[in-house]
């Protein structure tokens, strides 16, 4: 798939994806989270993997995730992130918000397309 057809991430959605990934997969290091997001999106998301570190710091500051040093599969030191209870609550709230938003946007866009066809 050519690069320019990949989806740009909307502002703020990366945090949501990180939370969702951690909730689904349990403790992961930064690379693991990045890969998982790419994989689960079917490699459709354009992600500079470096950008998730700022997101991880932000989520830690908000205490939605916690971090702990551990050892990766390849025997390297890595930070493993876990979602916290606060994070799960937040994820629930954000997910339902996101779904409402997409439904509404979908509803708004659908008749317009129908009208054109």
């Amino acid at each position: 798939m050519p690069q320019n057809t990949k989806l740009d991430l909307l502002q703020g959605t990366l945090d949501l994806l990180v939370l969702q990934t951690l909730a689904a997969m349990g403790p992961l290091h930064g690379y693991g989270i990045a890969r998982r997001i790419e994989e689960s999106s079917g490699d459709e998301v354009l992600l500079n993997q470096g950008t998730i570190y700022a997101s991880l710091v932000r989520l830690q500051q908000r205490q939605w995730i916690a971090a702990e040093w551990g050892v990766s599969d390849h025997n390297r030191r890595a930070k493993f992130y876990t979602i916290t209870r606060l994070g799960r609550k937040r994820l629930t709230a954000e997910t339902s918000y996101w779904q409402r938003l997409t439904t509404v946007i979908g509803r708004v866009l659908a008749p317009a397309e129908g009208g054109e066809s």
Partner: protein
Amino acid sequence: MTLRELCCRIAGLLRRQDPDADLDVEISSHLELAKARYLHRGMSEAEARRLAALEFGSLATARENVWEQRRMPGIASLVQDLQYAARGVRKSPGFAFVTVATLALGIGLCSLVYSGLGTGILRPLPGVPDPDRLALALAPVPYHWFESYRDQGKTAWTAAAFIPSVPFAVAIEGATPERITGALVSPEYFSTLRVRPMLGRFFDPRIETAGTSPVAVVTEHFWRTRLNADPHAIGRTLRVNGRAVPIVGVGSRDFFGAAPGSFGVPDIFIPATADPSIAPELHDDPLHRTARPEFFVLLRLAPRTTMAAAQARLDVATRALNKGPERRGLSMQLISASALVPLPKAARVALATFYGVLVFTILGLTCANLGGLLLARGAARGREFAIRLSIGAGRARLVRQLLTESAILAAAGGLAGFVAANAISSLVLRTQSASNPLIEIMNPGPDLGAVLFAFAISAVAAAGFGLLPALAVTRLDLMDAMKANFTAGMHRYRRLGLRNAFVVCQMAAATMLVLIMGFFVVGAKYGSRTEPGFDTAPISFFSVDPARDGLTRGESAAVLRSLPERLARLPGVDGVSLAGRPLFGNADPTTPVSVVSVTRPVALEQVGSRFFATLGATVLRGADFENRDLPSGDNSREVVPAAINQAAATELFGDRDPLGRRIRQGDRTFQVSAVVRYAPRAMLMGRPIPTVFVPLTAKDLEHGAAEGTTVVVRARTQVGIAELRRELAAIDSRLTLFHPQTLPEYLAESDRLGSKIAAFYSPVGVFGLLLACLGLAGVTAHTVQRRSKEIGIRMALGAQRSQVLRLVMGEGAVMVAAGTALGFAAATAFVRVLSAGSVQMAQLIGPVASNPALTVGVPAFLVAFAAIACYVPARRAATIDPLAALRED
């Protein structure tokens, strides 16, 4: 940003450990893991690394994003700004010192003027709730007038009457009596003021009815200093004027009575309705007799009554009373009694304006100094700004940098200003007498509000003037600005003339400040000086008050009649006479007298026989008073002989011969029997006051005046106080002698008021001068430094030292001249307006407003100082090494 996030960021700031190392480990294992995945797919090592890096994106951006998330926004650059600004300030200590000193002086002076002078007089009456509703009638009235005001104005006000400053001989349980100043008050006094007692009770109209035996209320000051703060003071007995009087109440700590700034602070209150034998002021039944206008009326206006409405009602009541048998023709002016010193509105406005202009001038001077300094410095840094802009600094960043610098200077200046305010205030306070409780109320030290106000204004000025150069530079062509440090930016300023305008403002404000202070200081010293018109050296005097010593009226009159003769027999004594009060220094022309249809205010003095001979005052026409002249005082139709001084003769009769002519005062008639050379000056007044002398009557000798009867002694050699006391005791053992003084001592003391005023205003003038000098020297020095290259070129092209000197001095001279002229005009205008607005100011300033020592001396001094301030840096400019100046890019 959530609150929690903010906390983490702040915590991150404080944490010393390095989170960057952690991040690096994390990123490198990330890359390692990504590489491993590609290796796993069978790629070469180099290809795997390339793809991993590509996938990760920019390392730098990732790091930056994490930093951005971690730190406080702007903090790092703020710290940079602070460090940079601090370094800049350290590197030019002269500039920093002058700026901080300017701020310190400006703030200190404003606080002094505001707290010491302005609010001292205008400060609300302490210890009294709602002082705004209090009003005072300016002239004293008979008691029954007060009663009719009280009863007629029931819906508009509650009223009280009082005689202020009444002396009492007070003894505490057998100790020797002391003279304590108190007040005789109507029983409504305390309830009208709405004050509550600290101990016991205050007077009550239902208890203190006419003729009851006297009781006393004392102040907290009296209770603390004389009764040793006795908690059981209520019920203790004082001997007041020889009678036992129980204490029924003690006032609260901050209660000083009504209008303490005008009447003094009373220490004891006695109901005016008490048995008249308690005080000679109450003899002859003043509560019912109409002829004794001695009571001041204090009103507390009802919530909806305005001052104007109250005045109108009072006028109606006064008109009715004036139709009564005594036909006084008094008009009653009501003034607000909300302040320590009740003043008519016009005088209050004049005072407030005066202090306002003073504070404004000081602030203006401070701001002009700051502006000049900061502009000069900013201009010198034009090149620096241009370089920073060209290598990519944003305008906003530059502005923030300059603001930070101004803030550092302002903070240091503010701190120094607070210290200076304290120091200046305590310096000035120490010169004032601390014994007066009123000084304690009036001068509580530096005023925090004033300090903050002055600081805020100067800080805003510092920020504004600090920014101006940066804003100007950012509009410039960068290349031009970088090429030379005295071109682009400078020309802009010179055209605008902004910096020059500051120098002119500085000079103007300094001239104005010093001139006005000069008028006050010289006026106060000059105006209060008394030159009586006769040799004061042999004269001394003291007071006696037989009525308060417990003598009967008959005894009192007999003692006072025989006293002069008895004392005159003492060795060394040339003559003895009596006077109603110590009259030599301070007399105010407050008694209206009429000749035919002309009415003029004069000072009316009561004196004994051979008064002028005793003083040594020349009788120009007619004859001195003799014993046979003394009227009985019983009959108001009696024509009383009167002596007048030259000022009164001119005022009342012009060129006509005054001898034998008649003067009317109320219902009394005087006939001029003598013209004397006698020239007392009123407090703070430059000219001799018209004075009319009338003989003490037999009645006066019976009850004595409030201040006691003054015994004037003329002696070739100093007569000892002990000797006089012995002689008095021989006449009557109950007599006490008080206030013994020689006339020269007394006059020196009355001059001291002028010195006090001078002591108050001199520091303002001196520090103002210092402020002006600081600013002027600072700005000139900076100008020369800035122009060193231009001067270097001129000298390289052959300019002589003298030419350089002339160039630098010439520019300064134009500005100094303009500023001085402006300041002089402003000061003159201000003094005119002030004199037109207030009689006191006119009297104070009038005699010195054209004094050449001030009008020529002050500007000349300032110009001379400015010349020095210009000369020092100009000389430095002339010694610039042209080569060095040119090399210095």
